[in-house]
């Protein structure tokens, strides 16, 4: 029983990360029908932004709530800006071309970030940038003390905090999408960009902001993840990105609550599979889940079956 509960805790902590990244996929897909394959790498950049901000501001030497919050917000701002740049220069010029073109560009952007970050440092002060290929240690932004223990189950406080932060962000996002004018415009643009444009909605700006928002969430995910698993390197966004994409599809791509549930379900599945069968199947399971969902319920758990517009 203890073991079962421990797996539950571990799985939730893992699932939170997937869920936060999945939100970015789902939002961009919802609005643009584009799978932003560079999203996992934006998540990686987010963690590195946190690393740099933490080192430059000295938060790593004097951990504290305020510093950690500032670093997280800073990293979210950096990634938001990155999301804007990617959309503006890589996706917008190709928006009216074939869908495949945008997909290929996305893969290009992804490789650019991954391998760009692996170059040897050009700037050396105050911290080396790009970081180069060898893994870095993510500084402890908070000092939370010993993990909580009950019934023999260990819950690291950082995971608990991560879960809370993630839930707050997700609820915030849900409010933005359903309670604000921006959210309404977003939904309108997603429904039919052309008509939305005719109705006076600045579609380009809405799409830019969607990218900014999604990328900022990815940065938050990057920092939450790096705080509990403090090893960061330029390629670590790859697998997490893919799995988060699976989570988004599982939940129903385009649906915000779907992405959350999809992420948590995937995290838990992975954890239980790795715990009770062989851990070698861990990654295979994520993709098996994807295939099964596509076979049985292609629209995902929370998705609505839509007829493709002609």
């Amino acid at each position, binding site marked *: 029983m203890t073991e079962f509960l421990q797996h539950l805790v571990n799985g939730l902590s893992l699932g939170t990360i997937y869920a936060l990244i999945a939100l970015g996929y789902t939002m961009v897909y919802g609005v643009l029908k584009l799978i932003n394959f560079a999203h996992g790498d934006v998540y990686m950049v987010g963690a590195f932004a946190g690393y740099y901000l933490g080192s430059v501001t000295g938060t790593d030497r004097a951990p504290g709530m305020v510093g950690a919050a500032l670093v997280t917000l800073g990293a979210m701002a950096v990634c938001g800006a990155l999301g804007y740049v990617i959309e503006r220069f890589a996706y917008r010029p190709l928006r009216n071309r074939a869908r495949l073109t945008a997909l290929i560009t996305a893969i290009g952007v992804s490789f650019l970030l991954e391998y760009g970050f692996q170059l040897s440092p050009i700037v050396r002060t105050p911290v080396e940038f790009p970081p180069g290929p060898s893994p870095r240690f993510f500084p402890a932004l908070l000092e939370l003390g010993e993990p909580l223990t009950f019934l023999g189950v260990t819950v*690291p406080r950082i995971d608990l905090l991560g879960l809370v932060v993630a839930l707050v962000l997700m609820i915030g996002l849900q409010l933005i999408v359903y309670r604000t004018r921006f959210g309404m415009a977003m939904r309108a643009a997603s429904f039919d960009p052309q008509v939305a444009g005719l109705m006076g909605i600045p579609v380009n700006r809405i799409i830019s902001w969607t990218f900014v928002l999604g990328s900022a969430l990815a940065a938050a995910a990057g920092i939450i993840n790096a705080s509990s698993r403090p090893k960061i390197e330029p390629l670590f966004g790859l697998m997490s990105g893919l799995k988060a994409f699976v989570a988004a599809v599982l939940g129903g791509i385009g649906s915000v609550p779907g992405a959350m549930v999809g992420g948590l379900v995937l995290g838990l599945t992975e954890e239980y599979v790795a715990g009770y069968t062989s851990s070698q199947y861990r990654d295979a399971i994520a993709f098996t889940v994807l295939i099964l969902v596509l076979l049985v319920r292609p629209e995902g758990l929370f998705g609505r079956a839509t007829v493709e517009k002609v």
Partner: protein
Amino acid sequence: MLRFPRALPLVVAALAVLACEKKKPEGAAAPAPGGAGAVATGDRILLGHVGSLTGSEATFGDSTDKGIQLAIEEVNAKGGVKGKPLALKTYDNQGKPEESAIAATRLVLQDRVAVLLGEVASTRSLAMAPIADANHVPMITPSSTNPRVTKENGKVRPYVFRVCFIDPFQGTVMAKFAREHLKISRVAVLRDVGNDYSMGLADFFLAKFKELGGTIVDDQSYKAGDQDFKAQLTNIKGKNPEAIYVPGYYTDVALIARQSRELGMKQPLMGGDGWDSARLYEIGGKALEGSYFSNHYSPEDPAPRIQDFVKRYRERFGAVPDSLAAQGYDAARIAADAMGRAKDLSGEAIRDALAATRDYPGVTGVISIDADHDAVKPAVVLEIKGSAGHYVATVQPDQPQAAK
């Protein structure tokens, strides 16, 4: 505009002819008989290094390359080999086997190196070994410990050598150390399934540990690059072992150590030379205190040969050499030594000289090459205290090598 395409083939043809003309003298200079492949071009002897300069084990390639550079600079300062200076060409393989094969082919066929150095990882050395054999270019791997690198299906690869000990030795060293020194009887294994090195170490550890009367309570696996190991660790925790053997690479081991402590596990971890990197301590932090790993050498060893090397390396690169650097250095020095003894610089002559290496005083121990092209030399066990590996014991090669 239209004229260009028509002129283009002509230009290309002209360039091609020029290129061929240019290449000829090099090709003609090849003293072909005997050594079909490698030659020293012009007045310097070229060594080729294939290493992981990028990718998740980048410090391996980087350290090795620095060790090789230091060795070459020292050899050149003493007049080179057979009156010719050594030169180094390094290609990055991004930590991938397929890239290693491409790089090795390029070094052998295009750059025509006299000796191939590399790779650190067994998986990648295995990709290079057939190329060395097929082209009759001697290859020395500084740190690949998997037996198959030099011996495939019971047959020794004619041109492949190594200057490190092999997995059976390293795995058994740790098993012996755990049973006899730490008096431990229950151990769990956590291995990297995608890695020949990790699998080899785990298998040999397991066999020896059982043979010495210990119990393996669990055998779990992970994949390099994973971020989360708690599922496996939770399982291991339930079986309550006295130690966990994690024969992986430092990047993963550091996270595994942290996560095991987060789960409230107090057992020491044990591992092999793949742990040896300053990053291990940086990422693992306090979680690794009291853990043990087997290694090729310790910079703390007071022997003057080792202290000299540590001093020169630090002057040149501003860091304490890890064992990868020491082995890169030894590999290049042994290559130079063999070329100096070889009757000419053909691949065959260098190979024969390499095979005849006996009692070479390297910084990672006194090295003799045995009939299987493996180095016979001792291993050290280090204990991690205060974010550094400290020397605990030296295990001599005699009986474990006989076991293989």
